[in-house]
């Protein structure tokens, strides 16, 4: 019997080889009916047609449709790599769909720079990014390699770690950096000559024009546009920009509202304001978030705030509990006084704004969890879902306590692949490295969690995070943390509905359930049935957001 509700012309049914809904009461189907951009029903074609819909779109007949992937921790900055040539080790897809080959030696890097130099006016800066020497077997990059590319342009190579840049002799001269330069972070060779290395942003800033050029890209509209495109290409339908200052910047807010509203913008965005300033600025920040919320629309949401408590593990700046780091100097750094955390967070908690806190180290995880405990005692909120993000070294005691308090974790599981070997051998040693980003234990304990890529830190996309969580392979193809492996079913839920949950967005996105947005990731193969080692290699067609297909451009080279 056809539904009494009259079908509208915009209604559509998509058929598929298989639909995975992330809705446990109806986990699969072969057709989905969409009305007003929302899920009307998932099931068989006949079931969908029973709504009286005749408009059947069969373009996905041979594809797998899944509940759209939700990225709960990335940065809009990922979009700016469109403007800066990519020179990393791994091949990377640009927002326009073009795949750039990896750079496998310093000579190859010089060649790339030379190619750019021939079409760059003399004296103009050449900036490239993503260089990743950690995987190179060749000689350490110095100004001499870059001088081989050009002696008539300043060259600035921004490394993937974000902590290092290498510049050429032309740039060294331009900024008067010679032997004995007193700034910390300037590298010298055995003869006392600068070797072109600039460590940490303070030293990178010596290369003033290039450093500023990179910084300016962050608030450009094109960066937001490209961010959206790269998320679509990665199959993400809801992406979080975790740590923006839009609430403090009316112009950037207006630009973001407008850009994301455009029909061509392919992704739903969660903008999480960053907690910055002095403690007594926080009530004002709450007001500003409330005011930003009045500008939200179906593709822009402001449900949470982000706070940063420490640095990174590979930078030795995460604050780690006893016995500290395995090798290297402990530069563990609180970004604000631990006793003030609770004062910073109180106004947000009281206002019902979810809190995601960057804690890489175990000490900072503890400080955050303790602060939440105190806030809950002061102001009960049964549904806060406050989240430890990165959460890489959370201990089991911390996970149990976080569970009891109603918190979540967002694991940086890509670390297992990208830096797992280094964590085992250098930063935290074998025992803790096996237990990093402990998805398996979180399941045993019952702590809700999601994964993130922290794009641009690692490339966006949940096929890769799921692959990491299921296989736990490092870059050298060794298993790191056999007992923390999880099933593909758990991984899929972490990448969809559980991510939506910690964003307070699970009533809108994260699963294909009647009344929620018809957001889907379109894949060539089923992550549940391919060889688990192949999950990350599944081809992504693109996405469907609010019922509208957004195809990844296919670049034929």
């Amino acid at each position: 019997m056809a539904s009494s509700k009259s079908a509208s012309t915009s209604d559509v049914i998509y058929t598929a080889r298989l639909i995975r809904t992330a809705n446990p009461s109806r986990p699969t189907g072969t057709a989905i009916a969409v009305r007003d951009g929302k899920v009307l029903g998932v099931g068989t074609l006949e079931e969908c047609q029973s709504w009286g819909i005749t408009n059947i779109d069969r373009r996905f007949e041979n594809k797998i449709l899944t509940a759209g992937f939700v990225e709960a921790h990335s940065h809009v900055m990922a979009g700016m790599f469109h403007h800066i040539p990519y020179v990393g080790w791994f091949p990377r897809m640009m927002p326009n769909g073009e795949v750039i080959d990896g750079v496998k030696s310093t000579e190859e890097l010089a060649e790339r720079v030379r190619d750019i130099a021939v079409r760059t006016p003399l004296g103009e800066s050449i900036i490239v990014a993503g260089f990743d020497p950690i995987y190179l077997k060749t000689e350490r990059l110095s100004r001499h390699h870059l001088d081989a590319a050009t002696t008539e342009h300043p060259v600035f190579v921004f490394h993937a770690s974000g902590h290092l840049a290498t510049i050429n002799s032309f740039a060294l001269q331009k900024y008067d950096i010679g032997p004995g330069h007193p700034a910390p972070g300037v590298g010298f060779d055995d003869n006392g000559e600068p070797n072109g290395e600039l460590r940490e942003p303070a030293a990178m800033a010596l290369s003033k024009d290039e450093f500023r050029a990179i910084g300016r890209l962050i608030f450009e509209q094109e960066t937001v546009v490209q961010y959206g495109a790269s998320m679509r290409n990665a199959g993400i339908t809801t992406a979080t920009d975790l740590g923006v200052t839009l609430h403090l910047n009316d112009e950037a807010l207006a630009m973001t509202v407008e850009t994301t509203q455009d029909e061509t913008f392919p992704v739903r965005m969660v903008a999480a304001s960053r907690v910055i300033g002095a403690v007594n600025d926080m009530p004002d920040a709450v007001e500003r978030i409330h005011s930003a919320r009045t500008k939200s629309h179906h593709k822009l949401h402001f449900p949470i705030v982000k706070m940063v408590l420490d640095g990174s593990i590979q930078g030795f700046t995460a604050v780690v509990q006893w016995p500290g780091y395995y090798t290297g100097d402990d530069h563990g750094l609180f970004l604000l006084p631990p006793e003030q955390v609770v004062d910073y967070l109180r106004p947000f908690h009281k206002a019902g704004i979810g809190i995601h806190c960057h804690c890489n180290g175990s000490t900072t995880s503890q400080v955050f969890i303790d602060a939440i405990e105190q806030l809950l005692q002061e102001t009960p909120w049964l549904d806060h879902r406050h989240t430890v993000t990165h959460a890489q070294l959370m201990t089991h005691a911390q996970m149990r306590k976080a569970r009891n308090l109603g918190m979540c974790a967002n694991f940086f599981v890509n670390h297992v692949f990208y830096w797992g070997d280094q964590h085992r051998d250098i930063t935290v040693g074998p025992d803790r490295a096996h237990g990093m980003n402990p998805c398996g234990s979180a399941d045993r304990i019952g702590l809700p969690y999601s994964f993130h890529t922290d794009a641009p830190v690692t490339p966006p996309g949940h096929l890769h995070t799921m692959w990491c969580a299921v296989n736990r392979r490092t870059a050298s193809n060794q298993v790191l943390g056999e007992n923390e492996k999880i099933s593909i079913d758990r991984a899929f839920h972490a990448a969809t509905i559980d991510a939506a949950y910690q964003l307070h967005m699970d009533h809108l996105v994260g699963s294909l359930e009647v009344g929620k947005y018809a957001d889907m990731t379109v894949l060539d193969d089923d992550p549940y049935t391919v060889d688990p080692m192949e999950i990350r290699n599944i081809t992504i067609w693109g996405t469907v957001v609010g019922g509208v297909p957004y195809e990844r451009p296919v670049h034929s080279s």
Partner: protein
Amino acid sequence: MTNPRVPTFVIAGYLGSGKTTFINALLSGGATNVAVVVNDFGDVNIDASLIRQTHADTIELTNGCICCAIGGSLADTLFTLLDRPTIPSTVIIEASGVADPASVAAYTHISGLSPAGTVVLIDASEFSDNHRNELIRSTLERQVRAAHLLAFTKTDIATDVQRNEVELIVSALAPQTPAVATTAEILAFLVDAQPSPRIDPAPGAHNRFSSRTHHFSRPPSRNELLEFLTALPRSIVRAKGIVELSDGECVLVQQTGHHRALSAIDAAPTGIVLISSE
């Protein structure tokens, strides 16, 4: 050609150690054309006259998270400051209470600035208690080690026991670093280093300060100037002034505790103000 570089101080010290109080004393004491950059948690504000929040200038600050390592850093704020039509004659950066002063001071080398020293404030009434707190001990120790000049504050409310404890801890951590007991006004006097009559010691403290101005009988060579500065007694905690060298060049001498910088300057010689603490 060398452009004159703006001397830039880093004022650091744990939460509530008196950094803002000191900067306000400096500004209200008549120091002119001073730009203050307040580096709160994840945030940088510029204000040339008073310390207050100006959201228009709010820019995210670099931190250990890679994702935040570029753009919106302290460097950008400082560049913006130097882009302004009037360039300040002094820049003061108030570091956040947990900042590693050395990593903040690293920014004072950027084009247009010249490092003038890192002053770390130590709250004499709180430090020894805080130092017992394992969570923050390494933060405090890092701050003490990064100082060129250590200034004890709140000696008026510290007990004798607290004062003795803090002196012991600090001198063990940084035995070579000059340490003085101050009030906000004394510290302002030290940093501004204008010729001034004697200053009374901070309550509860024994440091007595005096200043005098040294004029060279004839322009010294750069080496002679360096020898002169090196030979100064340890009691000299601050030296500042413009000296004409024998080759006709003028240099600005900035010595703060055991930090020394000479930078080219296009201004008339003033002699060197020497402040000693006994």
